[in-house]
């Protein structure tokens, strides 16, 4: 949770305009190439519809989802690129017991494989189902989209954004939101009036524009509050509860043991005189 940039307008963001996506899956290929990810042996129609591979996995950090629908009696496709959302306040980073996830000042949420203990809490916590596990290995680690942090540090754009011929714009989050709002305003008939990711999970580093309502496209309805705040509202009480319970019980014990203690002191005082026949134990029911 270190190096949290407070101003998320300056972090890098993706604006993915799904109305412009042609479903070429160049982004998938570029991602595999840059991250040196193995190809998956897949079959057509193994998932819902035409998409391939069926799901993101340890070998696939991004993929284009195909949604077929009917419009004016015509079969149409909608496409939606699935990837790590690079949340402003990532749930994975907050739940990781060893802090293996970090939201960088540049924007990407990156993962330190050298720290990870493999507890998979990040997978439970992520509202978008992004972190994937190396189920094939005896000592598995987590894999996920890196936001091409290594490229961004060198002033380049992420591999998928570079490869995409039409739909992905990349820049600071403030600029991307402005651009998205401009498009919504200029061509309201083209878009469903919402920017997915602007407020979802407290704001994410990926912003989507769509033509269809979000749920029809398969976007998960996600809380607008930042996820770490849900656990923190309980966890912040921990030191206080520890002291209250500890202190309370100590005080209680002091009172409940008082009678016994007084009696023992009494006995001790008396015993100073004749110290011979005091076979006294600390308990009440001693002989």
């Amino acid at each position, binding site marked *: 949770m270190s190096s949290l940039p407070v101003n998320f307008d300056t972090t890098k963001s993706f604006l993915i305009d799904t109305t412009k996506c042609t479903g070429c899956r160049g982004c998938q290929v570029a991602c595999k190439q840059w991250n040196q990810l193995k190809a998956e042996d897949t079959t057509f129609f193994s998932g819902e519809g035409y998409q391939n591979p069926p799901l*993101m996995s340890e070998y696939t950090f991004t993929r284009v989802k195909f949604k077929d629908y009917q419009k004016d009696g015509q079969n149409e496709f909608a496409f939606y690129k699935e990837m790590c959302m690079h949340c402003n306040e990532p749930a994975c980073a907050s739940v990781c017991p060893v802090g293996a996830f970090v939201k960088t000042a540049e924007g990407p949420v990156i993962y330190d494989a050298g720290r990870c203990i493999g507890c998979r809490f990040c997978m439970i916590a992520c509202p978008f189902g992004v972190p994937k596990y190396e189920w094939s290995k005896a000592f598995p680690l987590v894999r996920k989209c890196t936001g091409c942090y290594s490229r961004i540090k060198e002033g380049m754009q992420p591999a998928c954004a570079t490869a995409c011929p039409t739909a992905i714009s990349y820049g600071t989050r403030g600029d991307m939101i402005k651009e998205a709002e401009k498009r919504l305003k200029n061509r309201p008939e083209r878009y469903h009036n919402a920017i997915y990711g602007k407020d979802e999970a407290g704001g994410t580093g990926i912003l989507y524009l769509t033509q269809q309502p979000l749920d029809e496209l398969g976007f998960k309805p996600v809380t607008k509050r930042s996820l770490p705040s849900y656990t923190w509202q309980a966890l912040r009480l921990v030191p206080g509860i520890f002291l209250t319970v500890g202190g309370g019980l100590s005080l209680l014990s002091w009172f409940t043991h008082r009678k016994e203690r007084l009696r023992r002191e009494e006995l001790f005082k008396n015993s100073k005189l004749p110290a011979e026949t005091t076979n006294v134990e600390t308990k009440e029911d001693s002989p």
Partner: protein
Amino acid sequence: MTAAARIIIDEIRGYHNFLKFMIGLVVLGALASAVRFVLGLGVTTNLNDVYPWGLWISFDVVTAVPLAAGAFTLGAIVHCFHIKKLEPLVRPAIVTGFLGYSLVSVGLLLDLGQPQRAWHTMVYWNVHSPMFEVSMCIMAYTTVLFLEFLSPVCEKFGYHVPLRVLRWLEMPLVIGAASISTLHQSSLGTFFLIAVDKLHALWYNPLLPLLFWMSAIFTGISIIILEATMVHRFMGQPDESELLEILTRILPWVLGAYLVVKLPATFLLSHGPLFDRPSLLALFLAEIIIGVIVPMFMFMKKACRVDQRMQLRGASLVIAGLVLNRFNVSMFGMEQPDQLIYYPSIIESLVTIGIIAAHVLFFVLLAKYFPIFEHHPETVDYSIPDHARKTAAGDGHTQAAGAGH
């Protein structure tokens, strides 16, 4: 060496068949966990990216921790609330707790992808993580339970100096145990607060940590009743049902308080529809009725409280309800309507059965070789033949040396 081995083998030969069966289950579990490390989690378990947590987390950790809550609950009742009569129950509870937590650690290590890095939690702190908090607490509390467990060991071997130290540490350990347990029992509930859009509204509410803590308390008490009754029936120990009656008088209050928090929290503080999934609703009702309401009304009646068989039945209901509750929160309630149903693989089941068998086995063996039940503090002489203690004359340091039971 062979002579020693001979003695051990003969000793094991003499065990009851039940114990031999338990040993068999533990060996099977150990083999299954070896297979898990050789072939990997993906092959040996039914876990996948949709179900990253399965039986090992739901039972071995999330359920086993409250099941091991007897030690801290009873410690607080006996020492802090000063109901000294219950003292004979404390030691078996500590043994159960110590075994329980040790096995929780084993289960957790088996479930980790990188168990050899478990120490990372101590180095790379992330105070925002409930998992960090729970692992620190479990390590701390297992240490506390180990220290408490050392008492019978030292008695067995007649180590008087450590006994003195342990005796002196008794109250700090009891209070420490209760505070640490409060933290991690509740933080197990905090785990699931992050799953806002995953855990069903019947269980998701901001008071989940409080509910986890309260249910750990009534489960701890019930486990002590179950364990004392079993030990009386099968291990020839005296009938403690008179002492257990005191515990059954506490139970309805805790169960009632739990309901008073749980029902309003469920209906007022949850977000999302409550009654949209009949199967989950049935599980919720089963958990509440079987595990809380029925035993609460049972133990409100004196006839049930004093009857040993009813004590056992009531306590078993509470425990069954708790197990169901933890599975509801960590497994059933997390399943989305369109997902495939998870069920544990053979390896997963064998490991969990092995862990349960190990608990029973080690408990019986410890009771066999160490003074677990014969603990009557008033008869034990904690003094050592020293002359350093100035208060000696009045404080138990007398000719009674060697009177230890």
